[in-house]
């Protein structure tokens, strides 16, 4: 009997049972790289220094495992550098075979760009061909792009907005830490005077760029960014107390919602009519006038609002975790 049991202890089935039970690892001590505890202790102890010279520290602290990790890292780095160099090499090799720079006969100067240039003015009403292209011919891409901005701002909200309403200790602590108004110079005269002059100019310039998107270089995105920077300058000069009187999170949400909703509905209408071969019935107006080119002007305004609000929201969220 006892012999049988010995056999059983050595048998595969027994080992399998043990492994199923998790008491034994068939590949014990293999594969997994464990960071030894001393290393972490050293890291914690030396804090910043450890972070700055990780390689040196490791060399001092451990003998075997640490070296293993270091070699692995070194190997990994060398391999990655080689990989990146090979990517550069391959792409350069490609460039050598690409069409020559600045040549009018290149494949990308084909009927597509020709129609945008030759008939863009009549078909979209926009003097600025690029604007006509992104807001009319290829408007679906541009709508997607506004959604990228929207979802990125949502993600930043998730990460950085601190909701003290939940009342947990951690959130309140973060809120306190994030509030850096205590450290900044309050009511700096130079900054405020400069802002008094500059902010109106910047805002007017931003509005000009947005409104003239279809006539001159610019459009919703660039104009919106200018507007956003004006708001940020105002905020820096006068503090959150002033901006919160007209720009809170509620305002931000409503503005973004209404702008994107209008964008979505307007473009849906034009996609739907276009695909079903119906006339859209939107007058294009006189090219060159400010009130022309159909939907492009309102769309630019919407995009400008979204971008300006999002830029300001990014800044406020990064700064104090709220608006």
């Amino acid at each position, binding site marked *: 009997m006892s012999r049988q049991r010995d056999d059983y202890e050595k048998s595969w089935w027994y080992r399998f049972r043990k492994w199923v039970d998790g008491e034994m690892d068939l590949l014990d001590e293999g594969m997994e790289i464990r960071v030894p505890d001393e290393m972490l202790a050293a890291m914690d102890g030396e804090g910043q220094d450890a972070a700055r010279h990780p390689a040196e520290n490791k060399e001092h602290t451990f003998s075997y495992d640490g070296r293993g990790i270091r070699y692995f890292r070194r190997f990994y780095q060398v391999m990655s550098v080689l990989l*990146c160099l090979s990517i550069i090499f391959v792409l350069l090799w490609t*460039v050598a075979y690409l069409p020559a720079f*600045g040549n009018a006969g290149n494949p990308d100067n084909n009927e597509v760009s020709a129609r945008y240039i030759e008939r863009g003015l009549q078909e979209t009403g926009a003097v600025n061909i*690029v604007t006509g292209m992104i807001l009319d011919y290829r408007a679906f891409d541009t709508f997607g792009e506004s959604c990228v901005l929207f979802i*990125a701002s949502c993600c930043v909200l998730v*990460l950085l907005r601190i909701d003290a309403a939940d009342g947990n200790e951690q959130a309140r602590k973060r809120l306190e830490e994030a509030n850096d108004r205590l450290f900044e110079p309050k009511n700096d005269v130079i900054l405020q005077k400069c802002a008094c002059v500059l902010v109106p100019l910047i805002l007017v310039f931003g509005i000009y760029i947005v409104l003239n998107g279809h006539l001159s270089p610019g459009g919703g995105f660039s104009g919106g960014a200018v507007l956003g920077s004006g708001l940020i300058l105002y905020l820096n000069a006068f503090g959150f107390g002033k901006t919160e009187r007209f720009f809170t999170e509620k305002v931000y949400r409503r503005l973004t919602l209404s702008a994107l909703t209008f964008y979505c509905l307007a473009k849906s209408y034009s996609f739907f009519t276009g695909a079903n071969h119906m006339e859209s019935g939107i007058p294009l107006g006189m*090219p060159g006038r400010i009130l022309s080119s159909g939907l492009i002007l309102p769309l630019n305004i919407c995009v400008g609002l979204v971008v300006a609000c999002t830029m300001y929201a*990014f800044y406020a969220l990064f700064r104090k975790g709220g608006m």
Partner: protein
Amino acid sequence: MDTPLFVNMEETVSIILFGIGFTMLMLHRNLIKKILGMNIMDTAVYLFLAVKGYINGRMVPIVTNQIQDASAYINPVPSGLVLTGIVVSVSTTALMLALTIRLYERYGSLDLDEILMRAKEEERT
């Protein structure tokens, strides 16, 4: 100086920048530098696209003096693509910076390896 790499010098530069950005994004252990690398990489692609749209001796694609001839203006398509691309890159940059801030608050480090190590440690305790 007739080798294609010199003729396409602008592309060559943008490809090298792309490689640098790619390397930084992949290799650098500092998160901020990774993000810088990502921006360099994206910008290199935009440079590449912008170069592709350029045609020697032509005007920007804004209709002036009622000239509507395809041989008068550069190709407007790449410019539009660059515009779209820039917004995408701004969004991802903002998102990654926000993530970096949270990670720094939590682990007190910008070194990705160290962050991962501390995260593992935190989980074990």
